[in-house]
């Protein structure tokens, strides 16, 4: 496989798989933070140590059994163009921290883009697994498999009392960050989201809007993740998050039912208007585009719009980010030019999708 696909295909192949609850949960992610013993953490290590750390992991992943199992490609940050790094960030395959960092960072990326192992981010190692829909346990078990296999070759910084030692004490213990991306348009429309978020925070979970250009929340997409990493087992952390997500799914469903009962015509009108905007506009800002995409996605879930893939929201939200738009048009774009490109791309995508289905 050519590495170019990482930068040119907007939808990772893991996103295309069928999954449970994928009408509301867009994706599940598990991240494990690990560090090597005998090396300073990235906060303080020397350039020599940074290069050495990458080399250590390069050797681990070169063992034939490993390469075959995961089909990992090594991407060194220093070898990538800024635009390529931006695209990887927009696809959530690497963190902004790794892209911007000055630590000779690297990333081992699987062909399906469901496994991304970052080296020299805030910690020496960040193992990240991505699954479609609600599949936190599956993602955890894959992350554990990768972790166990790496551990056969390296010594992790670990302490009996504190667990896996990380640069930042907010990650110490399990080093685990579990998160899900949820599309919650009905909870937003009915304004229930404002009382739900504080309740979720009370349970030790963090809720964030997904942000694009500027600071506007995009397309009613929220990320829910655990805050605590110490004192609970990995399985318990995942189980707790899972049960909260299940409740949110139920609440979103009942909010959709209520809307459907009380304002069916308004809902239908909103979905079709948004579809009209996406299908016909020539200039569209990211905020409007993502709101319309959210409406159209809801329209697909409710059965109003047929012949469009459920993936349209995840796909176009990623594709209409600045990095992708510029990659797509083959050069740098001014904001106004981006709005034009965005509109063109969305129109094209809607037509292609209609034709295929």
């Amino acid at each position, binding site marked *: 496989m050519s590495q170019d696909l990482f930068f040119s295909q907007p939808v990772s192949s893991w996103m295309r798989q069928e999954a449970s609850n994928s009408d509301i949960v867009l994706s599940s992610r598990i991240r494990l933070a690990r*560090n090597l*013993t005998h*090396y*300073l*953490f990235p*906060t*303080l290590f020397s350039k020599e140590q940074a290069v050495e750390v990458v080399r250590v992991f390069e050797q681990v992943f070169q063992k034939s059994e490993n390469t075959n199992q995961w089909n990992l490609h090594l991407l060194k940050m220093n070898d990538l163009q800024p635009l390529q790094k931006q695209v990887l960030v927009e696809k959530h395959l690497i*963190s*902004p*921290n790794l892209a911007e960092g000055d630590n000779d960072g690297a990333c081992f990326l699987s062909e399906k883009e469901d496994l991304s192992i970052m080296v020299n981010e*805030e910690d020496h190692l960040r193992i990240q697994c991505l699954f479609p829909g609600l599949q936190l346990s599956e993602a955890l078990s894959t992350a*554990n498999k990768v*972790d*166990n296999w790496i*551990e056969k070759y390296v*010594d*992790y*910084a*670990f*302490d*009996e*009392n*504190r*667990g*896996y*030692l990380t*640069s*930042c*004490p*907010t990650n*110490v*213990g*399990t080093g*685990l960050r579990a998160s899900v991306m949820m599309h919650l348009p009905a909870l937003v429309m009915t304004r229930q989201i404002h009382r739900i978020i504080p309740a979720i*925070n009370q349970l*030790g979970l*963090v809720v*964030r809007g997904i*942000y694009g250009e500027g*600071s506007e929340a995009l397309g009613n997409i929220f990320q829910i993740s655990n*805050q*605590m*990493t*110490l*004192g*609970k*087992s*990995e399985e318990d952390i995942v189980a707790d998050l899972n049960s909260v997500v299940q409740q949110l799914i139920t609440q979103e469903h009942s909010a959709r039912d209520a809307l459907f009962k009380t304002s069916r015509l308004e809902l239908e009108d909103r979905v079709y208007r948004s579809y009209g905007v996406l299908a016909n506009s020539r200039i569209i800002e990211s905020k409007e585009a993502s709101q319309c995409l959210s409406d159209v996605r809801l329209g697909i879930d409710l059965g109003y719009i047929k012949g469009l893939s459920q993936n349209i929201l995840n796909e176009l939200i990623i594709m209409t980010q600045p990095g992708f738009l510029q990659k797509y048009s083959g050069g740098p774009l001014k904001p106004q030019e981006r709005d034009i490109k965005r509109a063109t791309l969305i129109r094209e995508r809607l037509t292609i999708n209609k034709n295929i289905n």
Partner: protein
Amino acid sequence: MICQQCEMRPATLHFTKIINGEKTEMHVCEQCASENGDTFSFSNQEGFSINNLLAGLLNLDPAVTENYKQQSQEVLSCPTCGMTYQKFAKIGRFGCADCYKTFERPLIPFLKRLHGGNYLHHGKIPARIASNLHLKKELQALRLNLKEYIEKEEFEKAAELRDHIRLLEKKMNESREEEA
């Protein structure tokens, strides 16, 4: 964790502010923290500084904080990486694994605030360390048994057990060497 303000850079400062009894968690990057000095000021404190953010999170009364400041200037610096407590308070990140031992005392209340009262790990253990922990526990139990045999003057059984303990000790040392 991403900064709540810019949603771009990683949040390196985490704190809780309480205004009129209402608790708010804040997670911000250094840049936003310094740019938004006014917004983040504590209700009953003069202004914002990165240092009193962490002091706020540590929830220490000023007398204790002063004490730590003085202590840390003289004593608290990590022998492995040279990290000082002040620097940690400023950047929110450690320089090496040994920092966790160096700063253990001020760290524990900090961990409790961050992790819902927890400061002990109850999760996964790397396989090699796990087998050693297991051995360690077994050895502790066997040594107690040995003491009992000696007290009861059952020397034959004691000798047998002593040999078994020596074997386990040897096994543990070997796996330690392998690790190193």
